[in-house]
Structure formats: structure tokens, C-alpha cells
């Protein structure tokens, strides 16, 4: 095939002719499609032409040449056999002028053109052009001002970093590309992009992600965006995502909903104990210790040895979000003391917990304000502070990152990374 590397916009609009005497004109190229957009550099599998008899397609093996005197030469006439939308990605219809996520640059951009390379006779999609050069080319700069295009720098995104999102012609193929590529983003980056999308695009993108990725991104979204996505996702899926979220973030989200909606979502959560836990958490004011706390902490018994305790933690910790402090309680969950993971590791295996633990308790009450929680954590250089009820029993803990999130202005909070990566969401993990 005599096509050098070039751009899709140069192929579109070309005359398609039948091979043979006189080169009988068939129609004009209006689109091309790829069947496996997941590939790093997917092959172009066919072209779409507009002919007198409507839109026709030719698979690529029926195309002899795409650049013989500026025409595309076909072996046999094209057929009227439109591929269903969900089997192929149509580069013009699905991508030209549409928004995509630049996974490498972590932002929303618009596709102006698509770069195509000829690799040993196979045409492959290489990159998306998002810059001014692509705009100028589409506006006909090649004809109007031939020298200009070469001087404008090109802005290309390697195909592997392109995640399509636009909601016209929803296509299964396209969503699967987005899903695998978007999950490479950090949850906070993904959340930022989701926040910039229209409500429907946002819901579709979240809908395409697996529960855990969606939950991670959800924790970073603003309340109003969360709500609008939940409304679009439907209760079943929303409950699945909430179940994967950290308890404190999930409770914040539920607290923003009206009672009917909240009850409906809680009812759909499969882990009933967790649903009850969430229901309790929702009752607290969002900017109090109760609203900030998570019930996902590790509690241990005082009369165990360090060896036994470490063995137990090893068993439980993968489920748990925060294990740097262990909370020593009696069997009614009354807090007796705390012990850090460091102390535990450095101690003799036979030492007893109650000998090692720090019984000078620093704690807050459920109605302590976010500022006071943060200043307590700062004053004692803590990673987390326990929240106790009036009888000294543990309700949960507030971790330093949640305390900081609560007191710094929202805008700054968005650009901050989390100190601790959250995965688990289990309620308190006991060793008893």
C-alpha cells in the first residue's frame, strides 16, 4: 500500500474507485473503523464510504491501495453491511471532535485528528492529535497555506493513552478501552476528570469501572457529583460501590442523600453488619469527630503476647485500612491503652501487650469539632486519634489524612495526595 504515514483527515473525503479499466468511482470515504481498539496500535479493519446507495463498507483486505493518484482502490464493490456499533470503533463518528481523556497527561482534551502509520502494508492507528496543527489541517491549511502546517508544533497522544468517553453512539468496545486505560490513573486524578465531565458521561464512565476503582475515585469526588452519579447508576450498582468505599467516606456520601434514597441504598448493601455500621456513622455531624471517624481500626486484647498479637494482625491486616496503631480494649471495647506497630515489632515475642501499651490516653469525643480533632492530632504528633463515648468505649478512629481534609479549604484538598492508600473498608478488626 502506497500510503506513507499521515493523518486520518487526509484519507477522509477521498474518492473510492473499483480496480479495473477506467477506475469506476464508487463513492467517498467518510469513516474508517478498527475492531480491536484495545491494542497498542490497532489495525484499521475497514473503511466506510458514502455511495449513491447509502453508506457501504469494505473490509481492509478488499482495499488494494489507499493512495493511487489520490484515490482509494477497491478489489470488489463495497457491501451494505454496517457493523453494529458495539463491535467496532468508528474513528470519525466516535472520535473526531469528541472529548477523550489523555491518560498520560491526566486531562480532558478534544481530538482534532488521528495519526495513521503504514507498518509494512498494514495501516495502524498511532496517535491522537489534539493541538493547533490538527485544527489547521482540518480547516484546510494544507491547501490554503502549505508552509504554515510544518511550522506549527504538533501535540500528539500515543494511542495507548487515549480513553474515549463521549456519549453519542455508546459502544461496548469503546467503554472497555476506557475502562482499562482509566484505571491506570490515580483515584484522585480520575476523580478530577470525572468531575469535569457532563453528568451522563460521568455516570457512564463510573459505570464502566470495576467496583473497587469506582469506589476509590468516588472517595475523591465532591458531594454533588457523587449524588448525580448515584442517581444515574441505579441503586444496585451504587450500593456495590458504596460497599467498597471507606466507612467514613461512605457515611459522608449517605449523609448527603435524602432519607428515602439512603434507606434504599443501605437496604441493597449485602454485608448487613456494615450497613448498620454506616447507618450509625451517618448520624454524626459531618465536621465532627463522629463524622470524620472510620470504624475500621484494629483492636487487641491486653493479656496476649506480642508474638500472638502479630500473628493475629498478619491474619487481619490485609482487610484493614489503618494498622499503625493498635487499640487495646477489654471485651466491652473500653479503651485501655494504645500501642504502635513499631513498639510491637521491636518488643520481645514473649512480652505481654499490657506491659508495653501506652495507657496515657489521648482521645476525642464524637461531637468534638474537626478543628479540635486536627489540633489534638497535631499537638501529640499522632497518625490517628481514637473517638470514645462517655463510658470510654471505642466508637472509631479519626486518621490524620481525614482530619486534614476536613480543615483545609476544598480547593487545596483536591490537589493533595492521600497519605495512606485506602483499600479496605471492613469494620473494626478484632483479635479476640
Amino acid at each position, binding site marked *: 500500500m502506497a500510503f506513507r504515514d499521515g493523518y486520518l483527515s487526509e484519507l477522509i473525503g477521498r474518492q473510492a474507485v473499483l480496480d479495473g479499466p477506467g477506475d469506476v468511482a464508487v463513492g467517498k470515504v467518510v469513516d474508517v473503523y478498527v475492531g480491536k481498539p484495545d491494542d497498542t496500535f490497532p489495525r484499521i479493519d475497514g473503511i466506510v464510504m458514502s455511495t449513491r446507495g447509502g453508506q457501504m463498507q469494505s473490509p481492509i483486505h478488499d482495499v488494494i491501495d489507499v493512495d493511487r493518484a489520490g484515490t482509494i482502490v477497491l478489489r470488489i464493490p463495497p457491501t451494505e453491511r454496517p457493523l453494529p456499533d458495539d463491535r467496532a470503533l468508528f474513528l470519525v463518528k466516535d472520535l*473526531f*471532535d*469528541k*472529548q477523550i481523556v489523555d491518560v498520560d497527561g491526566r*486531562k*480532558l*482534551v*478534544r*481530538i*482534532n485528528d488521528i495519526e495513521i502509520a503504514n507498518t509494512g502494508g498494514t495501516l495502524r492507528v498511532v496517535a491522537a492529535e*489534539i493541538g493547533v496543527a490538527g*485544527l489547521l489541517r*482540518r*480547516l*484546510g491549511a494544507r491547501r490554503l497555506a502549505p508552509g504554515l502546517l510544518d511550522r506549527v508544533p504538533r501535540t500528539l497522544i500515543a494511542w495507548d493513552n487515549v480513553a474515549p468517553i*463521549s456519549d*453519542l453512539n455508546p459502544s461496548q468496545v469503546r467503554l472497555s478501552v476506557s475502562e482499562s486505560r482509566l484505571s491506570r490513573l490515580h483515584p484522585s486524578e480520575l476523580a478530577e476528570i470525572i468531575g469535569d*465531565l*457532563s*453528568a*451522563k*458521561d460521568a455516570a457512564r464512565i463510573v459505570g464502566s469501572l470495576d467496583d473497587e476503582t469506582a469506589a476509590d475515585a468516588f472517595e475523591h469526588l465532591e458531594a*454533588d*457529583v457523587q449524588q*448525580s452519579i448515584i*442517581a444515574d447508576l441505579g441503586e444496585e450498582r451504587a450500593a456495590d460501590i458504596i460497599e467498597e468505599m471507606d466507612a467514613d467516606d461512605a457515611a459522608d456520601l449517605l449523609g448527603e442523600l435524602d432519607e428515602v434514597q439512603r434507606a434504599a441504598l443501605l437496604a441493597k448493601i449485602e454485608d448487613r453488619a456494615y450497613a448498620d455500621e454506616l447507618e450509625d456513622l451517618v448520624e454524626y455531624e459531618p465536621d465532627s469527630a463522629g463524622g470524620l471517624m472510620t470504624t475500621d481500626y484494629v483492636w487487641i486484647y491486653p493479656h496476649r503476647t506480642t508474638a500472638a498479637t502479630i500473628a493475629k494482625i498478619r491474619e487481619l491486616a490485609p482487610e484493614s485500612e489503618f494498622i499503625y496503631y493498635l487499640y487495646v480494649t477489654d471485651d466491652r471495647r473500653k479503651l485501655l491503652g494504645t500501642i504502635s506497630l513499631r513498639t510491637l515489632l521491636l518488643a520481645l515475642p514473649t512480652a505481654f501487650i499490657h506491659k508495653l501499651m501506652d495507657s496515657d490516653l489521648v482521645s476525642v469525643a464524637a461531637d468534638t469539632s474537626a478543628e479540635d480533632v486536627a489540633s489534638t492530632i497535631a499537638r501529640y504528633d499522632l497518625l490517628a486519634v481514637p473517638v470514645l463515648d462517655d463510658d470510654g468505649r471505642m466508637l472509631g478512629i479519626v486518621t490524620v489524612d481525614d482530619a486534614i481534609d476536613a480543615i483545609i479549604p476544598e*480547593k487545596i484538598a483536591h490537589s493533595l495526595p492521600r497519605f495512606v492508600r485506602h483499600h479496605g473498608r471492613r469494620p473494626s478488626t478484632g483479635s479476640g
Partner: protein
Amino acid sequence: MFLSVVGPGIITANADNDVGGVLTYSQAGAQFGYSLLWLLIPVTLALVVTQEMCARMGVVTGKGLADLIRENFGVKVTFWVLLLFVICDLGNTATEFAGIASVAPIFGGFIGIANAGLCKTVLVVACAILVFFVVTRANRDVVERIFFVLCTVYLSYVVSAVIVHPDWKDVGHQMLFPHFASSKAYVLMIIAIIGTTISPWMQFYIQAAIVEKGVRESQYGASRVDVISGALVTDIIAFFIVVSCAATIYVHNVALPAGHQIQVNDVSDVAVALQPLAGRFAALLFAIGLLNAALFTASILPLSTAYYVCEAFGFERGIDRRLGDAKVFYALYLSFIVIGAGVVIVPNAPLLGIIFYSQVLNGVLLPVVLVLMLLLINNKRLMGTWTNGVAFNVIAWTTVVIVSVLTAISTAQLVFPQIGS
């Protein structure tokens, strides 16, 4: 629930009564008396329909108008259409600064500075800097509230119109029985009134505002009330501006021989309409009102334009972006303010001309944006069950046809000056 979606319509309504609006309505009253009042009824209808269409598109698609134009009509259409709107908006921005420049001598006179050129330059530059500061640094909610409070200055037109005892019977008659003159000035004035009331940039703005608010389909009822009441407020104020100018300037002039008439050569001449209320402070009251209108619109119009251009072409945008991340956006925004303010401080710049012909350009371009909007909103793939009903399509297409015909007439008059003169 209502409060969470209210706002875009009311804000747009206030932005609509900008310098171009106030002065166009004033001139209409001063030059043609009550004889253009009838126009306000169809214009209000068309305004409600266009604004509602944009709001609905914003709610259903969650996308801006420029976004939809780009995704559905491709690069070429988007480029040429937006180029026209950018030029038009440059005119509109210059209009706002022209308003500021033209009231500068009134403020100057009040504090005892006689040099009009100096007042003009100082105030325009100060306002340009203020606008930039307000938009990039200040708390938007606070700023919006200040503008709202100052917008009550418009109520002085209502009071003024009542005090001066216009011939209400004549007003009513002129409202209900359209009167059409084919004179060049009359046709141009009709285009300008339509253009200033239903300016193309506001369609982009209101849709963007709705999208940003994140209004959902289930909340759309409240949003529609907001948009429609905003449109009504705009035109009720317009009505009183026309009446008070007609009852003071026009009525006054009719009774006098040519040499003694009040000439509307300068923007501040129409301040006479506020004399029944404010007496010798009329000029100052007018100046405060116009300055407020100018600042309000000058702080959202260049921003809105930079935003929709960047939206269409995929550049980073928004004032929450850093300068280095959104260069195109900030460059566009700044050049709008610099050019808009720069044009009017050129000595002897024809301020009234800039203002009036910008509004005419708005009118001329209105059919372009309306046709695109109609194609989009009737696209089932985009709008699902939210496409236009028959009545909306009829009103919108009629507006397109009427404005196009008027533009054709007015162009013909320009080429063949003997028509209608």
C-alpha cells in the same frame, strides 16, 4: 430545591440589561417614542424560547453550546461560526467599556475634574483592572450579591416612568398595535433591540451556567421558572426604560422647534429620562446604574467567550486553572479586556456608534446561533424525549426568518440608500 437550581436565569437577565441594552432601549424611546413598544412582546416571547432551549440543552446533555456545536457540526462550521461570535463579543466588550467611558465625565464633573479625556482614560483603565481582579481573585458569591443590589438602580426607571405621567392609553395602544415604518433608522433599531435582548453570547452563557450548576432533569421545572422569570424581568425593565425616555425626551422634542430639541449625541444625554425622579442628580444616578451594568457584564462576557472558544477547541479552561496550564484561555480573556478597553480610550472614539452597531451585529448574527440551536435541540439522539414542541419550533423559526428578513432589508438600504429613506 428551588434555590439550588435558581440563579443562571436571573444572572443572565441582569447581564442582559447591560450598557448595550440600556442605551438601545433609551434611544428607542428617545427617537421613536412609544412606537417601538409593541416589539417588546414578540421579543420577550422569543427570548423566553431561546433561553429555555439553551437551559434545556444544558440540563439534558450536560454540555455547553460550543461543545455541542463542535461535536455535531465538526471543525469547519465551529471555527467560522465562533469566529463571527468572537468578533461580535469583542464589540460587546467594547460596548461595556464605551459605557464606562461615556459616564466618566459625569463622575469627573461631580468631583470637579473637567478634563473629560482624562476622566475617561482613568476610569476605563481602573475598571479594566478591577474586572480582571474581581474575576480572578474575588469571591464570586459576594461579587454577585453586590451586583444584584446595585441592579436595583434600574428600579429608578420604573419610578421615573410613573412620576412623569406618560399617556398610559397611548402606551397601551402602541403595545398592542404594531406599527411598522420602513425608514432605515427604524429597521436598524428593530434589529438592535432584538440583538441586544437576545444576544448570541448569552445563549452560550446561560447553558454553561446551567451545566456548571449540575441541574438534573428532575429539577428542570424549577430551572425553567428561573429562566423564564429572568427573561421577563429583562423585558419589564426594558419597557420602563423605553417609556421613561419616550415620556421625557421624545415628548419634549415633539413640542419644540428643531433647534431647541434635546439631542441624543452622547450617552449621558439619555440620563434626562431620570430627571423626574432624581432632578439634578439624574445624571449621577444614571452614571452609577450604567457603570454597574458595564462592570457586571464586562466581568462575565470576556470570560464566557474565552470559555466557549476553549471548550470548542479542547484547550484547558476555567479560572481555577493555573496560568501556565490554560495559556490560551487566559490569553483570550486578557486580550478581550485589553482590546475592549483599548478601543474606547482612543481619543474621539465614536462611543455611541460602537455601542449601537455592536447591538446591530448581535441581531444580525442571532439567526446563525438560533439555527444551530434548533438543529441541536431537535436531534433525538442528543435530546431523547426533550426535543422541541411544535410551538417552540414555530416561534424560534419565525424569529430566524424575521431577523433574517430585517437584516436583508437593512443591508439593501445600505447598498441602495434610496430605499425607505
